[in-house]
């Protein structure tokens, strides 16, 4: 792994390289570090440091001066500038213990897991079915269909969520269309259950095409001779899917499931947009929404850091479990 593997390099080049090494001034040994350092500086400051700093903050009570459910975030930021790091009070594991009895956290957790368990299987199933359909050789205009179905991934997150907000209005297009087939107006945004459904359909609309593209790429990498061998053995369409496609596709499917799971735990734009226009916030609140509210509206930054860390722990654990269950070492 650490040794570079260069079977194609001719002896001539190897000789030149040796020459070169003798010619190069020793200061050029620092070249890779020069290429790496700008990336690494930003990575350390804005990614690595915050990861540890969040953990640190989660052991403190750290609250802003503004008590603020009423204040707009702009005002809150100005007020924040008055708060110094000295306002930290060490509370040990208090923040984490408080989570155990925080009913709004439990509600947020429930909503997120609910969306995860409903949305991810539906979306991955649809994406897989679409990938299989668009991989079939008899289908014409495959490129066109692929582009159309992948288009939503480029839509601005908040813009598309707003469109769904309007589509699912009491007097909106969806209820109108349902009315045509005799289904009475459904309170998509007013009712907790239905607004979760609205969020699920919005997320599915946006990400199915993206996952389809990844799965399609995976399908195209399945060696053709495996299908030919299966055909010689007299395998049915389903058997070919079950014994050739599925096992070959496993790493890619795993990737799709892991990224979709992480995506569900990061949900923010959709619930914020869709809930603010409808159902009572608590009934659809997601974890990231709760973190946002705790940190930047209630200004309890220490508690919000603990929430963040719990979320990071959950997501990492789930990803690891899924990778382990996926059972492939190369995934």
């Amino acid at each position, binding site marked *: 792994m650490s040794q*570079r593997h260069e079977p194609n390099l001719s002896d001539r080049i190897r000789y030149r390289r040796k020459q070169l090494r003798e010619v190069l001034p020793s200061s050029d040994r620092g070249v890779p570090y020069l290429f790496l350092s700008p990336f690494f500086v930003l990575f350390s400051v804005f990614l690595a440091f915050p990861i540890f700093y969040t953990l640190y903050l989660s052991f403190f009570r750290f609250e802003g001066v503004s008590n603020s459910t009423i204040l707009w975030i702009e005002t809150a930021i100005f007020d924040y500038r008055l708060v110094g790091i000295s306002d930290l009070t060490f509370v040990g594991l208090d923040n984490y213990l408080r989570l155990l009895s925080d009913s709004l956290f439990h509600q947020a957790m429930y909503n997120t897991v609910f969306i995860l368990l409903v949305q991810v299987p539906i979306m991955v199933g649809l994406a897989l079915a679409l990938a299989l359909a668009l991989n079939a050789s008899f289908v014409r205009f495959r490129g066109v269909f692929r582009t159309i179905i992948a*288009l939503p991934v480029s839509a601005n997150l*908040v813009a598309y969520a707003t469109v769904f907000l309007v589509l699912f209005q009491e007097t909106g297009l969806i209820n109108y269309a349902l009315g045509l087939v005799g289904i009475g107006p459904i309170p998509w945004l007013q009712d907790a259950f239905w607004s979760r459904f609205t969020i699920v359909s919005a997320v599915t609309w946006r990400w199915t095409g993206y996952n389809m*593209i990844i799965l399609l*790429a995976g399908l195209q990498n399945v060696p053709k001779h495996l299908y030919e061998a299966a055909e010689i053995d007299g395998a049915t369409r389903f058997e070919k899917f079950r014994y050739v496609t599925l096992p070959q596709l496993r790493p890619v499917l795993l990737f799709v499931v892991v990224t979709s799971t*992480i995506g569900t735990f990061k949900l923010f734009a959709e619930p914020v947009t869709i809930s603010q226009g409808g159902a009572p916030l608590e009934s659809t609140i997601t974890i990231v929404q709760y973190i946002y509210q705790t940190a930047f509206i209630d200004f309890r930054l220490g508690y919000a850091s603990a929430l963040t860390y719990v979320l990071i722990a959950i*997501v990492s654990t789930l990803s*690891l479990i899924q990778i382990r269950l996926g059972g492939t070492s190369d995934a």
Partner: protein
Amino acid sequence: MHETTRRSGVWKFVTYAFILLMAVVTIVPLYWVLVASTLPEEVFLSSTSLPLFPGDAFFENFRALQARESVNFIRSIGNSVLIASVYTLLSVLLCSMAGFAFAKYEFRFKEPIFYTILATLVLPIQLLVIPLFLLMSQLGLMNSYWAIILPWAANPVGIFLMRQNMKSVPDTLLESARMDGATEFQVFYKVVLPTLKSALAALATILFLFQWNLFLFPLVVLESDKYTIPVAINQLVGAQRVYYDQIMVAAGLSIIPIFLLFLFLQQYFVKGIIGGSIKE
């Protein structure tokens, strides 16, 4: 034999029907945004009619949107384009330089550093809002474009994608440039970068869309004059009375240009996702 042909005919029909249905479901909301933005609110929100064709109220709706005091929507489009472009250029540069170092040089701690960077892929890094918020306020970068350009410029997806692609550039090409007296940096931008045009386009597309969609952090650090599109649209929804006609114009204006860009760049985008996710 006849039986098999008929069954495979049914199969083809089901497949086509499914694809067509999904394509229609995908297109309807997009088409509808366009139509709705040209109609008065009471028409597209009426429960008694099905608006299928564009009307002539677009400019009226647009003027109403522009008259908003709390949000300058055109300015927010400008902000988003500027921020996403600078971010994309900076990030592509940083990621390809670092990817080059990982693909083509040997140095101490190369593997541990690379795998540390890769490990952050699993973390929901958009969640580091609180420490980043504190950091920005310490650095005096609150309400500046840099506050949302810098944090994700060192993008782990980008470095992974670039490293994979740089590996495919033959070493002999690099060696011969060196023999011609090129410096290491010249080797990088005169030899390596030009051979990776499609990978660079893919990465640029992915990064641009990523920044274009960022919502949580911009919402936290920006004030109204610097609002990006997602934050600006969110302000329209959060208001006391929701003006759906203005919202539809705003949504349409923010979705259409990026669709056109996507249609133009989608072949790279597809390659980029595939390259970054699956290979090796």
